[in-house]
């Protein structure tokens, strides 16, 4: 009976209303551009028009009252001129050498934002041009050395078994090359901050961001101030998708530098869409080469993979993006011999950065396209080939990680096929397509996505979450993890409410503010629910334990008992607080030097099926149906979870068929929503989302991370379906009608 009651009061797994939903729907939520301060100035960034060069002179055009403007150059920086992240190579403002188009050189502030814009255009630079490089090929060939000694930000090598020995015994050796393009995150709210900075009070920044402590770290170095003099507050944030992981450190620094020069007057910088698209980070373009050895039974013998990503002009997060891409490059398959060589290289384009999936969509695209080719060569169906090679409990991944959970990829595949009538459609479409101007196809991808930071990343982060209970029994959760539209606050509250067995409404989540929340790590890497959520659970349990240990709360209690116990505790001992710090689950080992071991604490496993039509009149491919099936440990909030999957799949459809960054001299030409084409609701099919649950022992209520997963499978599933429809193998995304036409006309 008591079990029954427990289940009924459980909030995890229920579609409770979003914590911030009402404020957003009614317009009461205040985003950064809604905020205004007394005496506030507006800031603007003057950027380089050229991709590479040396600045000779800065010129201020005639006809503007320059003495009214706050002007900041690299010479005004009080601390170090670098955006502190992993390396210290990227300057806040160019002092001499320009390394990419749109690189910030000078900052302006004025109370009249329209006049400011006029002034921005009146500043020009006399630049001695230097030869730029724009592609990863040019970078690898060292056409120019633009970074370090060899243009290489980072390389990894993964070795499992001995791949050199397999080629001789292989019945089949299959090679392929695969490419993915840049992609803009296109969050609804562009980047924006307000800063107040002066020597006495220090630096305070409000803004739209994913990672307040990243900004905090960057400002420490920029201003050379002690920690307590820097305060970063996240305001309501309209989407991030990784695009607000590292970039806010840049714009926050710029606003703070202007405020500092203006003697502490508040300075607001808001990018418009054009600036946000042209100047901020995008998904890393990639090239993957596969060489695969298979025996006549269709068993994988060896995989040699070369994975290269274009990092743009500065190191930023490229090494970690490369890491995730590398680890996911061999997929959910059991292959005894694997070698992966991976490189992140420099080019003279704005730095590429974090974007949902973080390298994995690139390498998974290559693998899942390649395996369809391998299956064809071996003479098996794509499904049968994968079935013979799926990984199982007890087997090892490319990094030698022993899978300790009961993985059932065959089961996922079977269910996904049932949901889509895959087998029947596969045969029917192939028969019916001949001579039709609308050709249909169906394809799939099977994959996994690791949750949390890679390798020892979580140990290094040592994330902390706090919980405090007031006299009224209300519980306030303290974390730097941000609500950016994905539902962090709601999920944290659900987890805490269940841990404490009290009303959901009693839980609130503090606004992330580095002056009063602990560092629970960045809001990235599908870690917020699984890693930080677990810390929320234990911090909440800490409150309960304290009350029970002090005899204020009995074993079985109601919400009223809880309130009473909190009141008594506060009266007797003051505010009730509990903190919890990350400890790795037992048996997790990672060797950073060899790149071997347990790359992630847990993986979500998935099979996605796409059905397409290709219009032979217009060469347009259209996704007609999409099934996303995944095993995620535990669904904490069914509506939010399905929303994550639907949104990720829509983004993946954009990545696959629509979103093409048009580059000219290292600069995005189509930096407007009219010409950078994201799919509309008219372009998106019904996205049918299904979950399976295999609780993960170290996730809150068994949950694993799912934020990035849905970005991974769409591209290969869709291109596999297009190959099925047309008989033509396409190996790059975005795949636009123009490229479809070329290939289809060649085969015709």
């Amino acid at each position, binding site marked *: 009976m008591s079990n029954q009651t427990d289940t009924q009061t459980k909030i995890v797994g229920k579609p409770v209303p979003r914590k911030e939903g009402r404020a957003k729907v009614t317009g009461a939520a205040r985003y950064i551009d809604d905020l205004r301060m007394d005496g506030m100035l507006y800031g603007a960034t003057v950027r380089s028009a050229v991709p590479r060069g040396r600045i000779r002179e800065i010129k201020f055009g005639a006809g503007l009252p320059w003495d009214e403007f706050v002007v900041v150059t690299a010479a005004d920086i009080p601390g170090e001129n670098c955006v502190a992240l992993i390396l210290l190579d990227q300057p806040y403002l160019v002092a001499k050498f320009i390394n990419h188009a749109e690189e910030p050189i000078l900052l302006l502030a004025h109370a009249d*934002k*329209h*006049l400011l*814009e*006029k002034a921005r*255009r009146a500043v020009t630079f006399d630049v001695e041009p230097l030869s730029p490089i724009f592609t990863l090929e040019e970078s690898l060939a060292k056409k120019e050395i633009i970074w370090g000694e060899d243009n290489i930000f980072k390389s990894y090598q993964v070795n499992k078994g001995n791949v050199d020995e397999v080629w001789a015994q292989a019945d089949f050796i299959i090679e392929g090359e695969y490419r993915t393009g840049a992609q803009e995150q296109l969050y609804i709210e562009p980047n924006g901050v307000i800063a107040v900075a002066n020597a006495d009070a220090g630096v305070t920044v409000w803004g739209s961001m994913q990672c307040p402590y990243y900004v905090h770290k960057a400002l420490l170095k920029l201003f050379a101030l002690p920690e307590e003099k820097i305060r970063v507050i996240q305001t309501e944030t309209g989407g991030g998708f990784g695009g607000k992981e590292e970039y806010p450190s840049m714009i926050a620094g710029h606003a703070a530098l202007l405020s500092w020069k203006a003697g502490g007057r508040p300075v607001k910088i808001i990018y*418009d869409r*054009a600036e946000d698209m042209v100047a901020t980070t995008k998904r890393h373009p990639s090239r993957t080469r596969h060489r695969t050895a298979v025996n006549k039974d269709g068993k994988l013998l060896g995989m040699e993979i070369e994975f290269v990503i274009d990092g743009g002009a500065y190191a930023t997060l490229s090494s970690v993006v490369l890491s995730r891409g590398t680890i996911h490059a061999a997929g959910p398959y059991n292959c005894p011999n694997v070698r992966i060589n991976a490189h992140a290289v420099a080019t003279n384009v704005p730095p590429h950065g974090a974007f949902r999936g973080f390298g994995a969509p690139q390498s998974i695209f290559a693998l899942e396209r390649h395996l369809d080719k391998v299956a064809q060569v071996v003479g098996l169906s794509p499904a049968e080939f994968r079935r013979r090679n799926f990984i199982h409990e007890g087997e090892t991944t490319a990094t030698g990680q022993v899978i300790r959970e009961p993985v059932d990829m065959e089961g996922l595949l079977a269910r996904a096929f049932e949901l889509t009538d895959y087998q029947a459609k596969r045969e029917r479409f192939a028969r019916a397509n001949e001579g039709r*101007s609308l050709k249909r196809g169906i394809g799939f991808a099977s994959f996994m996505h690791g949750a949390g930071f890679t390798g020892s990343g979580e140990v290094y982060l040592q994330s902390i979450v706090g919980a405090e209970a007031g006299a009224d029994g209300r519980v306030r959760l303290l974390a730097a993890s941000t609500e950016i539209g994905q539902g962090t606050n709601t999920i944290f509250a659900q987890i805490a409410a269940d841990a404490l067995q009290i009303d959901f409404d009693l839980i609130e989540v503090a606004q992330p503010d580095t002056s009063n929340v602990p560092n629970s790590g960045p809001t990235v890497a599908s870690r917020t629910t699984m890693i930080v959520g677990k810390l929320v659970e234990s911090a909440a349990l800490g409150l309960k334990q304290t009350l029970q240990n002090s005899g204020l709360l009995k074993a079985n209690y109601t919400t009223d008992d809880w309130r009473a116990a909190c009141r008594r505790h506060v009266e007797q001992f003051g505010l009730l607080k509990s903190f919890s710090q990350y400890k790795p689950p037992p048996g997790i080992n990672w060797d950073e030097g060899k790149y071997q071991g347990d790359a992630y604490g847990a993986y979500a496993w998935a099979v996605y099926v796409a059905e397409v039509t290709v219009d*032979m*009149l*217009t*060469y*347009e491919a259209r996704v007609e149906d999409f099934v996303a099936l995944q095993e995620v440990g535990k669904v904490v909030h069914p509506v939010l979870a399905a929303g994550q999957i639907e949104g990720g799949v829509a983004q993946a459809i954009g990545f696959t068929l*629509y979103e093409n960054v*048009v580059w000219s001299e290292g600069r995005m*030409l*189509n930096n*407007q929503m*009219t*010409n950078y*084409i994201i*799919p*509309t609701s*008219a*372009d998106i099919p019904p996205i049918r989302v299904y979950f399976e649950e295999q609780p993960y022992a170290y996730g809150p209520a068994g949950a694993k991370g799912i934020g990035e997963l849905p970005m991974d499978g769409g591209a290969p599933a869709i291109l596999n379906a297009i190959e099925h429809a047309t008989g033509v193998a396409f190996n790059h995304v975005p795949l636009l*009608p*123009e490229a479809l*036409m*070329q290939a289809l*006309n060649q085969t015709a």
Partner: protein
Amino acid sequence: MRAYLPDYELRAPRSLTDALALLAREPGGWRAFAGGTDLMVLLEAGLLTHRKFLSIWHLPELKGIEVANDHVTLGALTTYTEVQRDETMRREFPLLGAAARETGGIAIQNRGTLGGNIVNASPAADSPPALLVYDAELELVSTRGTRLLPYREFHTGYKQMNMQSDELLTRIRLPRTTGDLKTYYRKVGTRKAQAISKVCFAAGARMNDGRIADVRLALGSVAPTVVRCTQTEELLRNQTIDEATTKAAREMLMTEITPIDDMRSTADYRLNVAANLLADFLRQLKHT
């Protein structure tokens, strides 16, 4: 907003007469501002180089759809939404409704005007190919008088128009002689909605005794202006529709249009798709 607003001037004359007087007083000084769906985008991006504008949005003389015996007259301020709602337009000029439905989103359709779509002179505009098929005529008015011009003679080059700087486009006249045309409209954009066209194809034809008695082909985004493809029409007239005719017509069309590579697509793609749509149109025509 990348524009410095104090640099701009916007006047709202009380009547058409006042508007024309202002245009006559400073020829080239003022430009008409109707729904603003193109101009506001340029203003926001800081790319609106002209500074003095004349708002005509409220002028009653430029509004409304009038149906007479032999033609329908559309005020230059007729919106895409009005085009879609009007019964006569739906019945007799379906290509225009189809174009209006695919122009922007609902907000744009409520605000964007046919006159604006014409004088903005974009070769990628959605409604001009339909207007060309229907042999539309334009009424241009200035203090010097009124003239009527076949729309076909209006666009003279990329963003070049047969229109004086003191003139206003006031009306669009459609002869009511096309109600029985078999029509075909296909906008191939960069996505299904809210897109600028890569190829826009509007066509109409009449069959007589298995032969093509009348055919009109008009395309957008394939030349410096929207175009009527008269040579291909000539080739098709009086022909039966078979493989040889279709092939010859495709080839003629591909010589008659002059698309370019741009941010949205390639010349090659536009040529091929235009030819495919022509073949599709002829196939459908044959089977009706």
